[in-house]
C-alpha cells in the first residue's frame, strides 16, 4: 500500500469509518514508521501498544482458585504455600504449620542482609569503580539518546510538512 493510500485510509480512520482489517493495516504501517501516516496517528498506535502491555501478574489465577477452594467469596485473600514458594528465592522463609498457625517473619525480624541492603562496593579502588561507572553511564546515555532521536525526527517531519502544505492540513 503506498503512502497516498495510507493517507486516505488514515482519514477514514479519523472519521470512524475503517474496518478492523483496515485498522490492522494502519497499525502495522505505523509501527514500521511509514511516512504516509501522520505523527499523531503513529503516536496513538505507540500508546495503544504500550497500554496493552498491562497484564495481571502470574499469581492471579492461583489466587483465584485458592479463593474458590477456600469457600470464601467475601474478598478475603488466602495464601497457599505455592504462592510463597514462588518467592522463596528472595530469601523469605515462611513456615506454615497448619490452619491459622503461620510462622511469620515480620519486617523487624528479618535476618540481617537478606532484605536489608548491605551496601558493599564491588570494587576496592576508586579508579576501578570510576572506570566501571563511566562505562555504565555511557551505556545508559547512549540508550537515552536512542530513544529521543526518533521522536526528534518525527517532530522535524511534522514541522516540514506544516510549512509545505500550509496551516491546518495536519489537523484534518
Amino acid at each position: 500500500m503506498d503512502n497516498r493510500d495510507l493517507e486516505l485510509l488514515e482519514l477514514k480512520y479519523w472519521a470512524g469509518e475503517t474496518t478492523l482489517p483496515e485498522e490492522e493495516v494502519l497499525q502495522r504501517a505505523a509501527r514500521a514508521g511509514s511516512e504516509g501516516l501522520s505523527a499523531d496517528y503513529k503516536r496513538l498506535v505507540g500508546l495503544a501498544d504500550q497500554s496493552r502491555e498491562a497484564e495481571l501478574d502470574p499469581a492471579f489465577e492461583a489466587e483465584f482458585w485458592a479463593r474458590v477452594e477456600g469457600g470464601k467469596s467475601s474478598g478475603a485473600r488466602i495464601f497457599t504455600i505455592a504462592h510463597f514458594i514462588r518467592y522463596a528465592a528472595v530469601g523469605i522463609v515462611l513456615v506454615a504449620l497448619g490452619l491459622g498457625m503461620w510462622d511469620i517473619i515480620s519486617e523487624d525480624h528479618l535476618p540481617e542482609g537478606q532484605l536489608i541492603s548491605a551496601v558493599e562496593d564491588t570494587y576496592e579502588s576508586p579508579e576501578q569503580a570510576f572506570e566501571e561507572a563511566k562505562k555504565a553511564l555511557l551505556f545508559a546515555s547512549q540508550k537515552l539518546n536512542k530513544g529521543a532521536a526518533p521522536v526528534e525526527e518525527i517532530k522535524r517531519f511534522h514541522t516540514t510538512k506544516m510549512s509545505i502544505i500550509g496551516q491546518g492540513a495536519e489537523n484534518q
Partner: protein
Amino acid sequence: MQQQEFSETIMVFRHKMYRFALGYLKDEEDAKDVVQDVMIKLWETRSELKEKLNLEAWCMSLTRNKALDRIKQVGRKRKSDLDEVSPEVFSHSFSPLRVVSDLESHAHITRFAAALPEKQQATFQLRDMEGYSYLEIGEMLNIDINQVKVNIFRARKAIRENLVKLYSYGQ
C-alpha cells in the same frame, strides 16, 4: 463446568478484563480486585454460561458493571473537564529531554481519555486498544451499533485534538 474448562474458556480473558477495568479505575489493585470479583461471579454462575452467545462480551460487560459499581461505592469523581489536561502540559517545567520522551504524552493522553464521557472512553479502549468489532462493543456497553460508531468518531477526534496540542507545545 470443571476448573480446567473454566481456566481455558474464561480465565483466558483476564488480561483484557484487567485492562478494561484499569481504564475505569486507574488503579492496579482496584482493577485486579474487580477482575477477581467478576471471576468469582462467573464461577458461581458457570452452569448458566453455556447459554451465552458471546462469552467474551459477557465477561467484559460484567467487568464494566463491576468497575462502575466500584466507582460509585468509593465515590471517586471522574473528572470530565477536558481543559484539565492543558494546564499541566503548559505549566510544568520540562527539560528538553522530557518534552520528547514518550511518557509525557502518554500520561496526558491517558488522563485525557479519562476525561471523555464513559462510553467514548470505553469504545476507544475496546476498539483501538483491544480490537473488538462494533457489534461486540455494542454488546459490552449495551448500546446499539450506531451509537458505537458515533462514540468512536468523537473519541478519536477528541484524542487527536489533544495530540496536536501536545505537539505544538513541543516545537
